[in-house]
């Protein structure tokens, strides 16, 4: 299988270790000597029998594992020359102890050759396309060079995959050749009986014969099949020796009862060795051919399942309990396999995970860490002349008092735990060059993450703030990038351990740096919910006493009150302006602006002149997340650090103001005046009648049919249209009549939460429940529920809910509502894995693309994908919604 180029490296390592054994054993004890080398490349090739023997450190001859004392048998599968898995033993090959020894391969001499399952297909093509007598490829000599040239060209131009395709085509063309063009020998038909039996004209080819034929194929012909000769010889695909993996990759577990439980691979290898030995004995004893053949087949089965236990034609090898064994292929494959689970994904220390909860008093770039976590997670700090006193205070406090320290690390790498007993000694010992692992403190750098990590904003760097309590806390404004809420969400918390890691985290991952989305170039972090409605109410014709205003902005974190006008009563806009910098100018639309007109109403249009909010209201358009245009222009002008600070203040201003004035939604918010109720009832009545008329027309077949539709479909469409119109009409009525001063309306208007549709559904009419874009049709034979007559086409029988949530739904309406509810639930459940897979594919296909120093976008093999990123080289996260704002530049010059 894969042979790594690291051979050289390991050899050198071995050398060092051998030296260590010979006399400098102490050195190994003292400090772990690592040799750091960069791996430049990894080569893949097939192991030759010679190579297998060369790299093996033991020949395995007996299926027994342990002797009576429980000591590994020499020449058995757990031979200590293959590495150690028991504490106290030393490896016979390298001399190192458990965890130091990486393990060594062994081998078995197979009594008869065995076909490697994974190479069956290539062996098949080789047999089919080469002469059974002379071993040459079935192409006349004069054509060979031409074909080879052609193939090389294809490989150069479109890669190895294309070459493989072309080889397949050539092979397909050879199938009809039944006479060797070189030695004129007649060719017989070769077929494959899956998984590993080859037949020639219905006669079985033994692996010995196959191997003999493959040996005959000359090197030059192999290359046409794409086999690069020094790495691969065809006959190596028929095994004569089998490498035995080191014990370290198949450790046995000792159960509580003292019994040993072996790894699946060991079981399988045991089977192979046992059958192999029997085969040897039988051959040597001259047993009848049938018995030998049977054993041979059995050996083939065991070797096959050793490589892959999931072959369609073979029954999988099982444990005694009946559960299938996990052999080599299963170990590598799939999400839980070695590649995706252990190699492409890593595990980490210095991390924590708990429930999260909100704390608006934290800055956006902070994270509240419970003190319990802060005493367990540590930051290593190297002792030097200047900080030794400072670090000693931590050691003195020990592991239990905060802020203390848990470990000290000596310069030789020995870790020492600080306990009450060792504290004194540690304090004495401490000197420059030592490392103290001190508790987490305020201001430390950490990485905070919530799964699913779909963004780079799902993993950001926060400053630690140690707090009492047992949850991780974050400012509610950063919920959006994490997509977090507080209904029991948990988040992960990591502490980077090296200076490099901290520097990278701080510069590249801090919340400030992630303010502008790389998806669309606007601020993703902004005010949400109460923070929006608070600022909206404040900036919309509210006046407060000066003392209250000072209290308010003081609570928000502003210490400079000079921006507040010296009046007894100040307006809300002036309070808001106190947060803004003096030289800030901005003009933008609010949600109430009528965009259709060129100039919208003065009252709503947001104008900020020299840091004063002159007109307009603060709402979602200006300060909200994923839109906040005002935030974007502040970021543009004042940079990330200021904008995050201002954002935190604006956020707090909103909720502080609401805290003082009170804000709640009431049932009475959905009350409508009598004429509105009347109008809604009338509208619904008209719609019902219209539907009745349509149904009447349909029954009389007088309905005008839409082109390309049947009468039935036309009716459905027309009914849907009428009912949608009716619902929209009720919505409009609600919007016109509802009291604008209610808090529900304020929330909807400011864009904090909810919309007019939600209000209309509560106050007036829920509307048509649609399933797959149609009215509800499922249910009983020719009717939806048994409340209705068969073939009832009326609106209420097909899911039109004419009641509002406040008046309450009738049982059948409620049922229809649940139907759509369940449907949307299903939709989400089905969508998540689908989009997850799409994302994985995209990420995998594009992960190597990067911008080079010459501004081209290239992949890992330096192939140019784009000459200039996005055709203009602009980074979306540095742009304003994907463009450079030319108008602003013109105005500013």
């Amino acid at each position: 299988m894969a042979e790594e180029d690291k051979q050289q490296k390991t050899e050198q390592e071995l050398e060092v270790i051998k030296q260590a054994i010979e006399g400098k054993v102490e050195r190994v004890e003292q400090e772990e000597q690592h040799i750091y080398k960069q791996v430049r490349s990894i080569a893949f090739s097939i192991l030759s029998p010679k190579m297998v023997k060369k790299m093996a450190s033991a020949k395995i001859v007996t299926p027994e594992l342990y002797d009576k004392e429980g000591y590994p048998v020499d020449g058995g599968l757990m031979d200590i020359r293959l590495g150690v898995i028991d504490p106290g033993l030393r490896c016979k090959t390298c001399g190192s102890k458990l965890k130091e020894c990486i393990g060594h391969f062994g081998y078995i001499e197979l009594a008869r050759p065995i076909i490697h399952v994974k190479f069956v297909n290539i062996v098949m093509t080789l047999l089919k396309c080469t002469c059974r007598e002379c071993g040459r490829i079935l192409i006349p000599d004069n054509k060979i060079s031409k074909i080879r040239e052609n193939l090389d060209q294809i490989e150069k131009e479109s890669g190895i995959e294309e070459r493989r395709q072309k080889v397949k085509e050539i092979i397909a063309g050879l199938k009809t050749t039944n006479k060797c063009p070189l030695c004129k020998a007649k060719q017989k038909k070769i077929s494959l009986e899956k998984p590993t039996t080859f037949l020639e004209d219905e006669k079985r080819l033994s692996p010995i014969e196959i191997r003999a034929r493959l040996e005959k194929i000359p090197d030059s012909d192999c290359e046409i099949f794409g086999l690069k000769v020094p790495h691969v010889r065809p006959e190596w695909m028929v095994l004569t020796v089998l490498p035995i993996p080191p014990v370290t990759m198949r450790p046995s577990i000792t159960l509580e009862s003292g019994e040993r439980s072996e790894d699946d691979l060991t079981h399988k290898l045991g089977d192979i060795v046992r059958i192999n030995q029997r085969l040897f004995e039988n051959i040597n004893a001259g047993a009848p051919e049938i018995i030998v053949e049977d054993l041979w087949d059995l050996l083939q089965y065991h070797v096959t399942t050793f490589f892959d236990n999931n072959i369609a034609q073979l029954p999988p090898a099982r444990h005694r309990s009946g559960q299938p064994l996990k052999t080599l292929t299963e170990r590598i494959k799939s999400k839980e396999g070695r590649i995706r689970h252990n190699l492409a994904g890593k595990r980490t220390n210095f991390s924590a995970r708990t429930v999260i909860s909100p704390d608006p008093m934290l800055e956006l770039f902070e994270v509240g860490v419970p003190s319990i976590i802060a005493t367990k997670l540590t930051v290593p700090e190297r002792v030097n002349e200047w900080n030794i006193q400072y670090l000693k205070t931590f050691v003195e406090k020990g592991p239990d008092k905060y802020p203390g320290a848990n470990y000290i690390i000596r310069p030789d790498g020995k870790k020492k735990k600080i306990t009450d007993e060792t504290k004194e000694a540690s304090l004495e010992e401490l000197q420059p060059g030592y490392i103290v692992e001190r508790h987490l403190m305020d201001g430390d750098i950490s990485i905070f993450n919530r799964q699913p990590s779909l963004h780079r904003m799902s993993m950001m760097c926060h400053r630690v703030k140690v707090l009492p309590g047992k949850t991780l806390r974050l400012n509610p404004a950063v919920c959006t990038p994490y997509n977090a809420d507080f209904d029991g969400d948990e988040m992960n918390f990591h502490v980077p351990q090296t200076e490099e890691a901290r520097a990278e985290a701080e510069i590249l991952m801090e919340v400030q740096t992630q303010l502008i989305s790389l998806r669309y170039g606007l601020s993703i972090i902004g005010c949400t919910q109460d923070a929006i409605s608070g600022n909206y109410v404040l900036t919309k014709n509210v006046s407060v006493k000066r003392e209250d205003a000072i209290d308010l902005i003081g609570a928000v974190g502003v210490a400079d009150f000079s921006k507040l006008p010296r009046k007894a009563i100040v307006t809300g806009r002036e309070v808001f302006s106190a947060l803004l910098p003096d030289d800030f100018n901005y003009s933008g639309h609010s949600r109430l602006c009528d965009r259709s007109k060129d100039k919208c109403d003065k009252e709503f249009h947001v104008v900020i002149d020299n840091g004063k909010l002159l007109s307009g209201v603060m709402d979602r358009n200006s300060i909200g997340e994923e839109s906040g245009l005002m935030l974007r222009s502040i970021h543009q002008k004042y940079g990330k650090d200021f904008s995050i600070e201002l954002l935190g203040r604006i956020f707090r201003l909103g909720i502080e103001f609401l805290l003082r004035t009170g804000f709640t939604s009431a049932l009475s918010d959905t009350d409508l005046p009598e004429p509105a109720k009347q109008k809604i009832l009338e509208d619904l009545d008209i719609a019902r009648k219209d539907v009745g008329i349509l149904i009447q027309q349909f029954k009389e077949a007088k309905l005008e049919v839409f082109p390309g539709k049947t009468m039935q479909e036309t009716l459905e469409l027309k009914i849907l249209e009428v009912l949608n119109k009716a619902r929209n009409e009720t919505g409009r009525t609600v919007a016109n009549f509802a009291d604008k001063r209610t808090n529900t309306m304020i929330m909807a208007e400011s864009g904090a939460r909810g919309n007019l549709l939600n209000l209309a559904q509560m106050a007036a009419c829920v509307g048509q429940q649609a399933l797959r874009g149609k009215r509800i049709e499922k249910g009983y034979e020719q009717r939806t529920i048994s409340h209705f007559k068969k073939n009832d086409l009326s609106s209420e029988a097909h899911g039109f809910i004419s009641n509002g949530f406040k008046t309450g739904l009738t049982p059948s309406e409620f049922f229809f509502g649940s139907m759509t509810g369940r449907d949307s639930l299903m939709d989400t459940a089905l969508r998540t894995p689908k989009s997850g897979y799409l994302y994985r594919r995209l990420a995998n296909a594009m992960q190597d693309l990067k911008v080079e120093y010459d501004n081209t976008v290239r992949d890992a093999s330096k192939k140019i994908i784009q000459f200039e990123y996005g055709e203009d080289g602009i980074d979306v996260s540095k742009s304003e919604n994907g463009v450079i704002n030319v108008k602003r530049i013109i105005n500013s010059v």
Partner: protein
Amino acid sequence: MADIFSEFEDRLPQKIIDEIKNSLPKSASDAKVKKILEAAYEEYTIAKVSPGESVGLISAESIGEPGTQMTLNTFHFAGVAEMNVTLGLPRIIEILDGRKELDNPMMEIYLKKPYATGKKIEELRQLALQIKETKLRDISTELSINIADFTIEVKLDKDKMKGIEITNSKVTDAVSKQLKGYNIKDNKDSIILKSRSKESTFNDAYKTKEKIKDITIKGVKGISQVLPVKREDEFVIITAGSNLADVLQLEEVDAYRTTTNNIFEIEQVLGIEAARQSIVNEIFKVIESQGLNVDVRHIMLVADTMCVNGSLKGITRYGVVSEKSSVLARASFETPIKHIINAALVGEVDNLDSVVENVMINQPIPIGTGLPSLSVKQPKTAKEK
């Protein structure tokens, strides 16, 4: 003033220069224009991507993340009598898979001047019906086999034929062109097919009977529905089913603007650049219809990776991923065993220059901050001196 602009031509993208030209106040002096351009250039330099930025992953994130917010609804009813349109996540998947067969192929056929601005939609409907495919099954009432001599009789629906202007001779022409080995006799209300070969069996006749149902009598093959729509002040024909190559042949069609949503077909007919543009357009259309905000640059990068090789490759293990140079990168995606074995056969060498392999062996990845390396000038040793 033109001089000033030309001075900046190499430094600023054309798009920005054009935008400045268009939004300049008329009274702007040369000095001011220059200042504006300088300022624009400064901002442009700030906004440029930094070398080493892993733009690929950013694009993948930008499309993958909103994917979770998209609807799964295949059927979309936009107003009256619209056709089924695949939208949302399934459509994105369809495009990125590089599928050849779509769930809902569609075309938008624009027409040349005199046809497009015709006064009545009725006239257009005739034209549209010319395009719509009429199969034999659509104009026949009954297909039967005479067991005695194995002839096939197709009874024709005369009323329907009149409606779409098909005559008997047209039917026989079409059938004889597309069906070899049969003699066709016109019987006014029906046509009769008789096999020329003497050894015809009932089985053969039955097979032929099933086959001839799908013979195209009139129109463009594959176009199953047509719908003339007024768009601004011209008429456009929207079709269900797609056949770009044949539709572009039609005289009335404006080949410059007519498109299909089948990207594979566009690649075949108009080439790879057109296919790339149409991937961008189609993905952008879906994302926009879902009310999501994704920058075009991300979509362009995806489209470019799908098209770099000059042929359309889907983002699947058979497409883009199989083209990767690194064995381990391919193995870490799907079917790892297959990739490792094939690599072993040809003695492939993985040079570890992409991301996953370096993650696998715990080495810095050659992207972003892992890209730059430090070179130190070694002080000369005593010997060298």
